[in-house]
């Protein structure tokens, strides 16, 4: 039992923190969030050069063979900077699904480029009616002589607009809510019958709704086998998201402590009031809980524990609740300035809100965990 970072992990953490210091001042974040692309192509090169994009892939696939724990070390440090680059969509979602599901030719063709950052992927798994249920899919795949075509709509696909390739989850058999019959497909961004409606997210990110009308697609791996791999990818990505939230919450706590120590009202710092101190203590406690359950879960998932999915839901429920609380109190304790676009705290509140929603909100995961009670 050891919650401490290894020497390699500590170095990894340092390198990400240095990157944030040098590249993610709030003014830089604002410029990127407001840009057309929504992130920095230069930063993305750095992500590749530092090996962060290779980290989670197995060595035989051109990766560094890093574990879920290693990835969490990176995303927690990135969380403090509210980074915008598509690590999640391209590597942890798209790339990992190819790694778990693709045949050797597909892995060979795709993973090297993803790990080098020269190709980005987006994973279209959600649908309007599915909410957070991975097995619910109305999007269908039809087999024709020329191959498969897809018909349907996928929702809130992260970074679809800038992706060089889409992976679309669609049904090859069964009814919309059947657990069996889920497949994954590769779709070219310029494929006929594909339309993306692009939009910003509340936290400065980018996403699209993807409309498929007889869009040609290449089956990823084998038909009807995608669900288990998708669940594994989402579970692992949820670990990364929770670590990111822990990093963002830590930032909120530090900044709010500083602000309440320097903001004077009634002749003293507002942080001298016990009510403010207790609120900060509650925030601190929430961050500690979130950090601990995230570390524990990430380690369990990394060692391949049997009930990993339930453990992941427990973590997400706890971290989601903490994220909401810490984000909202960060704004509250900043008062008016917390409500402004020009000050960072409100953006961290929004990022934490988005991280709560991503891959299932607190209520979803609490219900999912409740099934194991």
């Amino acid at each position, binding site marked *: 039992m050891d919650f401490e970072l290894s020497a390699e992990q500590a170095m990894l953490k340092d390198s990400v923190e240095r990157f944030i210091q040098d590249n993610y001042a709030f003014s830089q974040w604002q410029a990127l969030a407001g840009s057309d692309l929504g992130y920095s192509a230069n930063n993305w090169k750095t992500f590749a050069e530092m090996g962060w994009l290779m980290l989670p892939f197995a060595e035989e696939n051109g990766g560094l063979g890093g574990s879920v724990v290693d990835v969490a070390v990176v995303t927690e440090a990135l969380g403090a900077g509210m980074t915008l680059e598509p690590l999640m969509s391209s590597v942890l979602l798209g790339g990992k699904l190819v790694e778990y599901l693709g045949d050797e030719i597909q892995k060979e063709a795709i993973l090297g480029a993803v790990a080098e950052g020269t190709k980005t992927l987006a994973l279209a798994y959600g649908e309007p009616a599915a909410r957070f249920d991975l097995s619910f899919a109305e999007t269908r795949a039809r087999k024709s002589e020329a191959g498969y075509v897809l018909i349907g709509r996928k929702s809130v696909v992260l970074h679809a607009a800038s992706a060089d390739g889409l992976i679309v989850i669609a049904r090859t058999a069964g009814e919309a809510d059947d657990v069996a019959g889920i497949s994954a497909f590769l779709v070219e961004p310029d494929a006929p019958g594909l339309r993306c409606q692009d939009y910003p997210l509340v936290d400065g990110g980018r996403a699209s709704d993807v409309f498929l009308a007889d869009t040609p697609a290449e089956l990823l791996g084998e038909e009807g086998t995608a669900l288990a791999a998708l669940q594994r990818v989402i579970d692992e990505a949820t670990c990364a998201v929770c670590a990111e939230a822990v990093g963002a919450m830590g930032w909120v706590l530090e900044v709010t402590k500083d602000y309440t120590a320097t903001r004077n009202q009634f002749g003293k710092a507002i942080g001298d009031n016990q009510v403010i101190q207790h609120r900060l203590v509650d925030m601190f406690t929430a961050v500690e809980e979130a950090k601990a359950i995230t570390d524990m879960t990430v380690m369990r998932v990394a060692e391949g524990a049997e009930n990993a999915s339930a453990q992941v839901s427990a973590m997400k429920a706890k971290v989601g609740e903490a994220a909401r609380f810490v984000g909202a109190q960060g704004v509250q304790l900043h008062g*008016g300035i917390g409500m402004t676009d020009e000050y960072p705290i409100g953006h961290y509140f929004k990022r934490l809100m988005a991280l709560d*929603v991503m891959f299932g909100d607190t209520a979803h995961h609490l*219900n999912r965990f409740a099934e194991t009670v």
Partner: protein
Amino acid sequence: MDLQFSDEDLAFRDEVRAFLKTNLPANLLDRSDRGLHPIKEDIEAWQKSLHKKGWIAPNWPVEYGGTGWSLTQKYIYNREYFLSGAPQTIAFGLNMVGPVIYTFGTEAQKNEYLGDILASNTWWCQGYSEPGSGSDLASLRTKAERDGDDYVINGQKIWTSFAQHADMMFCLVRTNTECKPQEGISFILIDMNTPGIEVRPIIGLDQDHTLNEVFFENVRVPAQNLIGEENKGWTYAKYLLGHERNIIARVARSQYQLARLKKIARLERRGTGLLIEDNDFRRRIAKVEVDLMALEAMELRYLSQDIAGKKLMAEPSVLKIRGAEIAQAIKTLTVEALGPYGMVYEAEDQLTMRNDGPLGPDYAHGAMADHLYQRAATIYGGTNEIQRNIIAKLILR
């Protein structure tokens, strides 16, 4: 104890309800439903039609243009108003400075301003908060120095809602620094077109422009614009704060928003069923509804005490705390109802440039806009922490 309203009151309720149903403009309701602030021209036109009906200022004394309604009727009117989904009338003239002027102003000031406030010919803004003076408002430093027939004003206000639209500002200024902070404040009316005033926008979390900073550099304001006596401004400001009680709990507005949340939950699909069929989600709607029922019961009980002539002390702060918390809980649940679309948000100016329809369901944008904006509900008008201090002082002695 009796919960029933009289037949006259019920007839009055029906009259109000019918008027609002017939006359509330659809575009105003639509923007309000979508969580967007009304456009200046639209809300002015709507206030003018309420003025024509004679209902624009129920709380004003009849001699100044009020309705002469009983406390119960005022309650019923406010309730029906917000249950109709109508956006709140702009409070700065009607609910704030108007009552200060007819209570403490000179005849000349009453003649000059009250008519235009009732007719919505002038848009007012509130110059209270300063960068260093939020909760501790009395520490304000914007200075007014007497020079002949004028005051010369220098300083800065912040969080000034809708100052970009305003013709006039009612403003707290420091006229004496050699005394307790509260005793050196004056209440003055400033024409926003006076040279030396600069209004700078503050963009909010919702990426909308409602807030502003207002800078004063040697702004000359006629001394006749002073309300009451010099250095007595704190008294008038406190009077004004006590005057917003009837809308502080926002029960009816929250009931309207709760009904909207239920409507969304009935539209949102959840697998092969609907979100409203999800027991857990329904239970959480129920929890907010129970809280809201208790809030309504408190409001009614306090109204009854008010009618009976009992002076209310801590009660308005109780209503403000719970009213704000419940409004926020409803907004949070409404965004949660959107599922993954709860991550999506696009500023209104981008949204209206779209030519291919809204993203996600058409209620998504407003749900998030309102959720973000309502984070301020526990901050403005005295934070919930300050409200708790007020209650503690009043009940723990």
